[in-house]
């Protein structure tokens, strides 16, 4: 299978090479200069965060700033764990985020499939209701949701952090739109070939919509990982609190150790980088999927 996929990529590469405009050199230099500047603007803060995590607080405060750690000091990372209990926070975040991401992708795929392929009464109305949830800002539901969580006896527990995010209106919408790109003939063919809804979903629809699924997985992961306000108001002990709150605490604890704050930030951002790298290809294709799908 992998061999075939690389075959696809090769062919796509051919097409791109053929299409590349052979504009005047100046325009190309200008374009790349602009891209380089943009890349630096985006990447520099990340770079400097990593650098600062490897410097001593004195080096960070020094002017002109140090742009390259000649003698990197890894101690700040250890301190982030010992001083800020970052290990527990990271574990909690990972648990909550993975649970939310898996659940959101699963429920959105199922709901999106139902809206795309199954005819049922009031499906349009229900779909509009799903969409309507996208219009409600999180701030509006914050207080009633917290009340609900408290009433359920879930305050300061993992269910409080996970359950409210098990389904996603946006994900349902995204998957429904993407799934509708699957030709009706494929659905009919699969039905005649002996596949029911579940197997058609898993064997045909999901593999064909990998870009959308990849994009949404990243989106869901980022959203869950970066949550701050909700975990803050439904938890009170570090045993269940997530890394964003942990970072905040770390900031308060290590005012004089800026390098530890930077190290904590790097650690908190690490999973996001990993997920971005893993899903990079899918993400780019997901963002452009609508443009090329026939």
């Amino acid at each position, binding site marked *: 299978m992998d061999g*075939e996929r690389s075959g696809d990529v090769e062919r796509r590469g051919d097409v791109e090479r053929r299409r590349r405009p052979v504009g005047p050199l100046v325009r190309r230099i200008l374009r790349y200069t602009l891209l380089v500047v943009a890349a630096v603007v985006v990447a520099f803060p990340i770079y400097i965060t990593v650098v600062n995590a490897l410097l001593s607080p004195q080096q960070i405060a020094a002017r002109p700033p140090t742009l390259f750690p000649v003698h990197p000091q890894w101690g700040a990372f250890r301190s982030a764990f010992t001083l800020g209990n970052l290990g527990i926070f990271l574990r909690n975040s990972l648990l909550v985020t993975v649970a939310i991401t898996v659940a959101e992708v699963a429920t959105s795929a199922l709901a999106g499939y139902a809206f795309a392929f199954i005819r049922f009464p009031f499906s349009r109305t229900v779909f509009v209701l799903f969409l309507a949830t996208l219009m409600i800002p999180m701030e509006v539901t914050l207080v009633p949701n917290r009340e609900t969580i408290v009433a359920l006896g879930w305050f300061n527990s993992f269910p409080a952090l996970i359950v409210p995010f098990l389904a996603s209106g946006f994900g349902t919408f995204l998957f429904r739109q993407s799934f509708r790109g699957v030709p009706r003939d494929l659905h*009919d063919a699969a039905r*005649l070939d002996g596949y029911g809804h579940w197997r058609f979903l898993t064997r*045909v629809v999901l593999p064909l919509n990998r870009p959308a699924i990849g994009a949404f997985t990243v989106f869901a992961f980022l959203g869950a990982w970066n949550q701050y306000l909700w975990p803050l108001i439904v938890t009170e002990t570090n045993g269940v609190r997530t890394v964003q709150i942990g970072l905040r605490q770390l900031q308060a604890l290590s005012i004089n150790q800026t390098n530890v704050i930077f190290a904590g930030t790097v650690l908190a951002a690490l999973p996001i980088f990993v997920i971005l790298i893993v899903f990079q290809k899918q993400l780019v294709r997901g963002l452009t999927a609508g443009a090329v799908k026939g």
Partner: protein
Amino acid sequence: MTASAVTGGPTVSPAGGLELPRSASVGLEGVTKRYGDATAVDSLTLEITAGEFLVLLGPSGCGKTTALRLVAGLEEPTAGLIRIDGEVVNELDAKDRDVAMVFQSYALYPHLNVRRNIEFPLRARHVAAEERDRLVAEVSASLRIGDLLDRRPAQISGGQRQRVALARAIVRRPRVFLMDEPLSNLDAQLRTEMRAELVELHERLGTTILYVTHDQVEAMTMGDRIAILYRGVLQQVGVPQEVHDRPANAFVAGFIGSPPMNILRGELAATGIADGLQVVLPGGAVPLPEPLAAVARRRGLTSLIVGVRPEHVAVDPAGTLSGSVTMVEALGHENHVACRLEGGKLIMVRLATGEPVPRPGERVTLSFPGGRLQLFDPVTEERLDG
């Protein structure tokens, strides 16, 4: 539910060879399909015997694809009964009807290679891997796609995709094949080749085929029988020659044949010789030969519809029908001449090579040698027989 009776059959034969025929009759009894106010299929009654190659022919939107989907179980009829092998299957799920369909779009799974595409229905039926491999090898060899098994659908040509789609249908040994315009996406030469191959395949497999097309050449050359649909209503069903020679109504007459039959409306008048009749057409009058005149007299008609095949029209200096040539199509083995009659009506003339061909713009007179006309009722457009 009587699903077990159908699914319990030997979907994959133990012997597995392509030589083992499996086929079932298909019956439609007053089958109607409505979408809101629109009627796609109107009380269709049709019997397809086991092993028959029946072509459902009609212009686009005539309901032929809907009829096919009804048999497949992809649509539910509004009324009527559908039988496969004598058993009513209305309540049976598509996957339990033991029919395979070949789609106009081929409907290959783009993310799977050819082998996995062909295997797809076998995997659904949990056929063991060894048996699967054997069946795929056998079918792909017989369709000459054995060297494509590791490619994806996007990496093979249209004709090859068509074969893969056929292989996927054949591999599970269904009782009935449903084919929805399977050749219409192919270029002309490939289409001719595939026509012959499909006929050969049918002879080899002996499986019932219900084949939908709008192409009357496909219908004439491939079908054991042709069923012509128009606006959801069955117009005629019969063997190709019968449909060609004795069309049941003016629609069928005007649809079958290449170029199709000329359909002209005319008034009946006396010739003045004995009680002979002639038809007054837009460009002149033509005598009605006696057996046909007798029919017209018996029915007391004053007007009628005349059908005449292009090969039964001649450019004749002594002809009584006048018009001017608007177009000449030289096909090599024959020439098609379009003449506009004085009333504005076009009439096609088919001339064999060797016959003198008039030029566009030339004024000509036409005759119907031998009086090989077909008459249709002016109101119902039904065929008038003796």
